[in-house]
């Protein structure tokens, strides 16, 4: 099946420019420094999922290097998920040292043993009588605005809006169904010599699929008669975007893929609120949620593109699905995890090389075609946010 349409999204969104996009933002250290202040310190940033801290007292620690922060996300004894700077109130030592753990009673600082409860309250100061004018009640951990959407945990260092306000139409589009079934199954971390936007832009379009992924997913998605990728949906929700794609009705699975479709045939426990067989949701600034329709259980892959320096990024990939109940489910999930890891392996081949190309300054602009409109939307939002917060 083919769809012979051209420049569809430009017609749909006539107010968006079609001009080349300057490449400076990916290579200038000054721009990177401003992104830190104007974007990352004031946006809602996804740092994980509540499935990692299912029980009271469970915590995770996340390094948010772009904000020079080390964040403790902990589920209190009251069940509430809270975020704090992982910094002791006494003299600033790191409180929790493990990436993941459980607070039984108190979290105790290793330096002088100040103790905090699971709600971040300071509860114990050794030799307290030898201090001067201390009020323990005022000396809890420093909170960071934290909220949860569909199980995903977001933090914000200087919130100007609630998470719900920030997400705008995303909250309506992503109905709650299915998300409570997602569990973190696997994670990959890939440190790259590229700007975070170079890495992220590479995921944010389907134009490359028929080229870069020609061996891996031939004829998978709907194309024109000439074999050019055509997405099924482009929608913008404020700062955020979703692109949807349809698997071609003529697609014939490869043997092992077909086998997985057959063996994994139990009753479904997870149906995500999808309108297309594949959806890519970009949550500004650096988070993406990918939804995949799959015979038994839909699954979700997330990307976090964490800036480290103008030319360095920590790319985190997480695979979420219901916990497999039997070998068939495990095998079919593993197939999709392996397959997508190889997709990302191919993707990665154009992150560092594009960065090098842009740093050479041989080219000053990125040229975007109609299927790359979500990249344009992202850069437009970024420019607008950078300008809005100018001088503040």
């Amino acid at each position: 099946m083919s769809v012979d349409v051209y420049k569809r999204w430009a017609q749909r969104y006539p107010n968006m420019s079609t001009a080349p996009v300057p490449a400076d933002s990916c290579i200038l250290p000054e721009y990177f420094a401003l992104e830190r202040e104007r974007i990352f310190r004031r946006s809602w940033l996804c740092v994980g999922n509540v499935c990692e801290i299912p029980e009271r007292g469970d915590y995770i620690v996340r390094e948010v290097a772009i904000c020079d922060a080390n964040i403790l996300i902990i589920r209190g004894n009251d069940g509430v998920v809270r975020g704090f700077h992982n910094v002791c109130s006494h003299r600033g030592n790191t409180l929790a040292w493990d990436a993941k753990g459980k607070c039984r009673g108190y979290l105790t600082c290793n330096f002088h043993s100040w103790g905090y409860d699971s709600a971040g309250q300071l509860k114990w100061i050794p030799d307290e009588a030898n201090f001067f004018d201390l009020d323990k009640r005022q000396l809890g951990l420093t909170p960071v605005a934290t909220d949860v959407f569909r199980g995903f945990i977001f933090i914000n260092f200087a919130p100007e809006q609630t998470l719900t306000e920030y997400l705008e139409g995303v909250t309506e589009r992503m109905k709650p169904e299915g998300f409570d079934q997602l569990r973190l199954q696997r994670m990959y971390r890939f440190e790259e010599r590229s700007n975070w936007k170079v890495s992220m832009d590479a995921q944010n379009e389907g134009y490359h699929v028929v080229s870069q992924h020609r061996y891996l997913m031939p004829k998978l998605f709907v194309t024109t008669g000439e074999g050019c990728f055509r997405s099924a949906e482009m929608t913008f929700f404020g700062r955020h975007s979703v692109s949807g794609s349809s698997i071609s009705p003529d697609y014939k699975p490869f043997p092992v893929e077909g086998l997985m479709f057959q063996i994994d045939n139990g009753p479904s426990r997870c149906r995500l609120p999808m309108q297309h067989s594949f959806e890519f949701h970009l949550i500004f600034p650096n988070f993406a949620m990918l939804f995949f329709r799959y015979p038994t259980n839909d699954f979700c892959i997330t990307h976090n593109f964490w800036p480290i320096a103008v030319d360095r990024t920590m790319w985190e990939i997480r695979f979420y699905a219901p916990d497999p109940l039997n070998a068939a489910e495990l095998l079919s999930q593993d197939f999709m995890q392996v397959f997508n890891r190889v997709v990302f392996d191919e993707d990665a081949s154009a992150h560092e090389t594009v960065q090098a190309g842009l740093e050479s300054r041989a080219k000053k602009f990125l040229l975007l075609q109609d299927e790359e409109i979500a990249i344009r939307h992202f850069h437009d939002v970024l420019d607008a946010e950078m300008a809005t917060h100018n001088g503040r």
Partner: protein
Amino acid sequence: MAGENSIAKASGALPEPFKDLEPFLHWALPSEPERMAARETSTIEELQVFYDAMLRRMPAIVEYLNRFPLDRMPVEAQRLLNMALALNEVSIAVERYRQPRVINGRERERFFPGR
């Protein structure tokens, strides 16, 4: 790993109905990075032989493994499961690339830092 391999080479390493797959016990690798590395360091001919042998038996393998709870797999069944997982990894090379390594991939071991 060495210990696991030497056990695996003993007879009785796979459940009775799957003895014929024992020549492929070196594919009973317990982790994803190991399976990926084995795929990348094999020849396409080796991958093809393993792929053909496993694919034929997969419906029976899955039926057999489905009898066990995932957290209480007998050790021989777990080896068989690890081989089936290796088929997933190997199938990408055999079916799609026709070569062991990802075409135009990039330093894929970096997906598993610290391992």
